[in-house]
């Protein structure tokens, strides 16, 4: 079962060795898409259960960290019958190159999907070199 579900199964986030989290809840690594365009880099992360108030994005030196808090979804008077996934917070960090314009980073959350737009610094945008065909 474990081998077949590797793509959809949630992966728990790793903690550095000999370190522990203060909160005892589970933390998962969100699945992300990263798309680089001519003007920006867009990071899209699946974080179901997270809204605009429960997500923290920080940029320290060149590490972009995403942390999303999720309220535990359990129901009183109900017992779990069948569980395929666990609920927990989301955490993931990325190293950015220097070419990001830190002042203009934008982030939005919609339907549990976080989208961070990292605009490139004007100087870093690649200049297009026109190639002419010689006859």
């Amino acid at each position, binding site marked *: *079962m474990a081998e*077949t*579900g590797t*793509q*959809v*199964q*949630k992966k728990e986030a790793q903690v550095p060795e000999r370190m522990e989290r203060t909160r005892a809840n589970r933390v998962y690594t969100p*699945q*992300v*898409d*990263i*798309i*680089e*365009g*001519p003007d920006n*880099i867009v990071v*899209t992360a*699946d*974080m*179901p*259960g*997270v*809204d605009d108030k429960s997500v923290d994005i920080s940029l320290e030196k060149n590490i972009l960290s995403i942390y999303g808090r999720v309220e535990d*979804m*359990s*129901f009183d*008077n*109900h*017992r*779990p*019958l*069948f*569980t*395929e*996934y666990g609920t927990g917070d989301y955490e993931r960090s990325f190293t950015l190159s220097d070419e990001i314009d830190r002042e203009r980073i934008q982030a939005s959350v*919609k*339907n*549990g*999907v976080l989208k961070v737009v990292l605009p490139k610094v004007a100087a870093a945008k690649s200049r297009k070199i026109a190639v002419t065909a010689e006859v």
Partner: protein
Amino acid sequence: MLWTEFDRFGGRLDPWSDLDWPWSPRGLFTAPRQQAAEFPLVNIWANADEAILTTETPGMDPSSLEISVAGKTVTLRGRRAPDELKDGSTYHRQERWQGQFSKAIELPFNLDADHVEATFKKGVLKVTLPKAATDKPKTIQIKSE
């Protein structure tokens, strides 16, 4: 125990089979093996009157999700379109699930299809599935004579 001993059986002997069953009681719930039958992952809670099914479908438009109920079975259908790639854009990472899915879950009781309710919030779909009246437990009054 030595792993080589298990290898000799050609992997037929699964040492974890006993541990595995609480999470996949195959006799009770059968998810037919279809295209991407495993997405989305589903949790089910139950009490005497109803079952609550939750599933994580982030980024999906509620209108593109289809829930159908027949007898004991709930079927979830939907699709998640990939992001449109503009000219000059390239993927650095592409980990998010995309495509079409259809997942059928069979519950151990009949469902009252007329009173099924579904809400979609923060990328989490919650479906309340009441038990059919015929399957509900009946309390019997004891008369004292």
